[in-house]
């Protein structure tokens, strides 16, 4: 056998690339991470925040599986809060302001200290593909590097154009050198390439903001962490606040007068942008009845020099950007340090992928992150982790690691990408997860840590912390199940205080907690039992919402039954009678493995699934 220096080559050092190369190296594979600029590893080229609704849960999941993003955020964050506290247990999610200097710094440290992992600064020009199988890469300076698998995590650097006003030039984020040739190499190998767009707002000097004119928004007062294992080290008292200001009719007037000057409305941009990150031009045009829009001022770094103008993504000429910012309270004299711009880039149509993130056309080639048409650091990191794991499993001839929709947001993300395809950069939303009551922030480790352990990504230390928490949960549950709340004066006073009805004789504590007005943390304090909030939250949610959780679980079972029904690989959809034309085309294109997967393909209706089942029963005697 020929000596091969690396098992896996990861191309791109963004959030997907970091997780992919760490997972691969930690699972024992010789790994090379190639990145165009080592300084830009784990870069946050857009907003300085990690987490948010749904996305915060993804970060917890990455962490529970042994990924790095959660812990790295905890180490470097400027502010953190829990969103949706009152809206229900299924939708609580962390959002942190990250530090654009320290986050990458810490991540680079982690990468450099990782065994089995080399990092190299270079650009990849071409894939080496033989008989539909990837064999390695060739760099722009002509160097050949062989490997068993290649993972592409090129982000927005693929054949990218920076657009601002009427100007356009080749370049990646921050105007850096982009990857000019790889996209061609992918096309040559038959992959379908699509063009997407995203944008970023201007950054301004902190010293030029008038903070008297803007609303201040603080982080939460209690210690919070993305990590499922380690206590956070940040200083709760010294979190950096965010600020809120608004656009006004004057801002909108200037935008309307200058629409023809921005890249977006002058027809220069061909790529499709995400609806959830509209430019300020888009907001003003599409929602012309609104006389103001929220603009968030977010700290970008711990040394507090620059602020990010959230909600103000724009492609207006520089002088207009300045004029616009100066119309707003707090920003009348602000100084721009970086101007807003849009970036158009090539991505792979994600329906080209298998559930393990390997391309259907090229064996051993995996892709993850924005190259798959997603947006967001968290979505990228999640795919990077999964691609890294699956590349290793492939080399080891093991079955792929696929998370189901009822197991993780990561499962929802990948299942959506592959079965529904995309028409705009994909962002996770809680509404995409039909079983979100099961996919909670609090139970991420319970859902995923055993998987991480068996994959070799959870070390002994983390695992024993996890086991200890598990024991505490079980102990508390046992206690609540075996102990009673009795009818006596003190207890009655407690109930009266809570506006809760009195009891006859005694009831189990577990029954008492089912009452909406009874709070477990408060009750335990009354009973003089000490337990951490983390443990209490898990136990309380499971007890209080048992009915809803069971209802969701029975929906899950319905789905799993459909997942068990396999579709033979050789099926000819033209022979299936009575399915709609659109469904036939989609099924032939995506070639789902199970009936469950087929039922989630957009354009495939319930009646089509019925017909498909009838056909399978007849042709394959499939039960």
């Amino acid at each position: 056998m020929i000596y091969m220096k690396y098992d896996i080559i990861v191309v791109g050092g963004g959030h997907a690339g970091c997780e992919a190369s760490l997972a691969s190296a930690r699972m024992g594979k010789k790994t090379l991470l190639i990145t165009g600029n080592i300084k830009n590893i784990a870069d946050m080229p857009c907003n300085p925040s990690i987490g948010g609704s749904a996305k915060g849960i993804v970060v917890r999941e990455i962490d529970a599986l042994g990924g790095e993003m959660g812990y790295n955020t905890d180490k470097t964050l400027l502010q953190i809060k829990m969103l949706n506290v009152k809206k229900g247990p299924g939708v609580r999610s962390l959002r942190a302001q990250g530090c654009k200097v320290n986050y990458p710094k810490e991540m680079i440290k982690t990468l450099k200290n990782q065994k089995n992992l080399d990092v190299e600064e270079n650009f990849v020009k071409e894939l080496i593909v033989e008989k539909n199988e990837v064999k390695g890469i060739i760099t722009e300076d002509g160097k050949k590097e062989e490997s068993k698998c290649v993972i592409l995590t090129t982000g927005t650097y693929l054949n990218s154009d920076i657009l601002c006003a009427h100007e356009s030039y080749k370049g990646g984020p921050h105007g850096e050198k982009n990857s000019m040739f790889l996209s061609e190499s992918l096309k040559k190998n038959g992959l379908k390439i699509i063009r997407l767009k995203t944008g970023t707002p201007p950054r301004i000097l902190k010293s030029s903001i008038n903070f008297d004119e803007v609303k201040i928004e603080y982080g939460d007062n209690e210690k919070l962490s993305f990590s499922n294992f380690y206590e956070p080290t940040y200083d709760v008292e010294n979190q950096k606040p965010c600020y809120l200001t608004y656009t006004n009719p004057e801002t909108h007037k200037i935008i309307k007068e200058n629409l023809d000057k921005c890249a977006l409305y002058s027809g220069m941009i061909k790529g499709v942008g995400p609806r959830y990150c509209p430019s300020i031009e888009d907001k003003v045009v599409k929602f012309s009845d609104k006389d103001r829009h929220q603009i968030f001022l977010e700290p970008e770094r711990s040394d507090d020099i620059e602020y990010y103008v959230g909600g103000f993504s724009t492609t207006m000429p520089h002088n207009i950007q300045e004029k616009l910012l100066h119309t707003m309270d707090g920003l009348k004299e602000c100084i721009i340090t970086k101007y807003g711009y849009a970036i158009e880039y090539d991505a792979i149509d994600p329906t080209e992928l298998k559930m393990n993130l390997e391309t259907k056309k090229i064996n051993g080639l995996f892709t993850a992150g924005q190259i798959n048409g997603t947006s967001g650091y968290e979505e990228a990191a999640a795919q990077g982790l999964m691609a890294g794991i699956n590349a290793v499993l492939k080399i080891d001839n093991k079955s792929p690691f696929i998370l189901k929709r009822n197991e993780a947001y990561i499962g929802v993300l990948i299942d959506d990408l592959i079965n529904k395809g995309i028409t705009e950069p994909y962002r996770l939303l809680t509404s995409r997860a039909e079983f979100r009551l099961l996919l909670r922030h609090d139970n991420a480790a319970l859902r995923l840590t055993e998987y991480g352990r068996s994959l070799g990504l959870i070390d002994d230390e983390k695992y024993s912390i996890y086991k200890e928490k598990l024991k505490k949960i079980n102990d508390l549950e046992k206690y609540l199940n075996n102990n009673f709340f009795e009818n006596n004066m003190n207890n009655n006073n407690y109930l009266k205080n809570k506006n809760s009805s009195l009891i006859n004789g005694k009831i189990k504590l577990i029954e008492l907690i089912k009452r909406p007005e009874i709070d477990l943390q408060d009750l335990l304090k009354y009973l003089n039992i000490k337990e951490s909030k983390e443990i209490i939250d898990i136990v309380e949610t499971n007890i209080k919402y048992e009915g809803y959780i069971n209802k969701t679980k029975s929906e899950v079972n319905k789905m799993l039954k459909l997942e068990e029904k396999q579709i033979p690989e050789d099926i000819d959809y033209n022979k299936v009678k009575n399915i709609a034309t659109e469904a036939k085309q989609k099924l032939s294109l995506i070639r789902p493995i199970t009936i469950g997967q087929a039922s989630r393909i957009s354009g495939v209706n319930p009646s089509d699934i019925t017909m498909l089942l009838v056909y399978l029963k007849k042709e394959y005697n499939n039960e």
Partner: protein
Amino acid sequence: MNDTICAIGTLVGESSINLIRISGNKSIEIVNKIFDKDLTKKESHTITYGFIVDEKEKIDEVLVSVFKSPRSFTTEDIVEINTHGGKAPVKKIMELLLNNGARLAEPGEFLKRAFLNGRIDLIEAESVSDMINAKTESARKMSMKGIDKEISNRINSLREILLSLIANIEVNIDYPEYEDAVIVTKELINEKNIEIKNKIEELIDSSNNGLIVKNGLNVAIVGKPNVGKSSILNSLLGEEKAIVTDIKGTTRDIVEGNILINGIDVYLYDTAGIRETDELVESIGIEKSISKIKESDLVLFVLDSSSNFDYEDKKVLDNIKNKKVLVIYNKIDLGNKKVKELEKYDSLNISAKNKNCVEIIKQKIFEMFNLDDISNSDFTYISNVRQISLLKKCLKISEDIENEIKKDIPIDLMEINIKLLWETLGEITGNVYKEELLDEIFSKFCLGK
């Protein structure tokens, strides 16, 4: 579905013109082979005059309409040939079409293609099928409403209310910092839920009318032998259908006939008198009567005013207890006995010999079923068993939501049933598609940083 199908669209032999319809991607090509003009150059939605030819022989003088994909009933290319009446030309033209590559359509296949190609939704498909089978003017009007999308529109307007509520909740959750969205409260959910619940109840109530319009009313005429059942039937039908004699047990089979009351089909069944008998033929008749009673919407219980309510009458009563009953005291010219046990039922005093009894009975049935409402209404009824059972499921979910509002449950969990209601309503029209939700979210709210 790639093949081209053809069928005769009219009742051959009964009409002076016949219509042959061809649908599929080869329809124009196939007809072109047997037509003396060039159809391939014709615009969509045009009519061309010419001759159907077999080799050089002229078969029939016809008008040919061309509807090009996707602007046709099936969304495929459709060609329609209007031929002369009479069996011979139609038969010959069908032969020519089949020989040139078309296939004989299965029953309902045009409709099925329209549905599978996304041209019509489930309610429309079901309505077209009802339309084909409509027997009365009222039934035709009702199925037309289905085709017109009126029913779909009503369901969809309920779904829109729910969708904007769900989108609003999702925005509250996914964009917690976004100020412009109203925060959805229990009060708001309650208000919307009550509105929807009332509309669903209305649809369910009217669905009973829908079934009457579609299937007509089945009326069984029962009573012990020789109380005048057959006379009443004959009067209602205006003809001598049942044999009327003075001998008990003359009617041994069920005699049917139908009349129209205000445009609604009313099917009348004269049943054999119910009594104990050893005679085989008569007892079979009695059994049939009992099963007819079970299927009927209304039972006309005929009694003889001149004789006492006896054991045999009671026996009949036992068989109709759970039905809607109209008691008819016949032969009032001979007596006026009233029965205490029957006071809870609607009743009429008539003499079947008297001609005006027909109008009295019709008027009473008319009142009992609010046929007035039906014939004056706009016929937007749901009349399909599948649709009705889904509507009832929706009502149940709406009641669950009502109960949850009273409890202290977070919005995220309340949304589970709201979504379920939205999806179940979508099942009625066959439109369950999640992307709708995201489209709604992003079109209504100006989101994103």
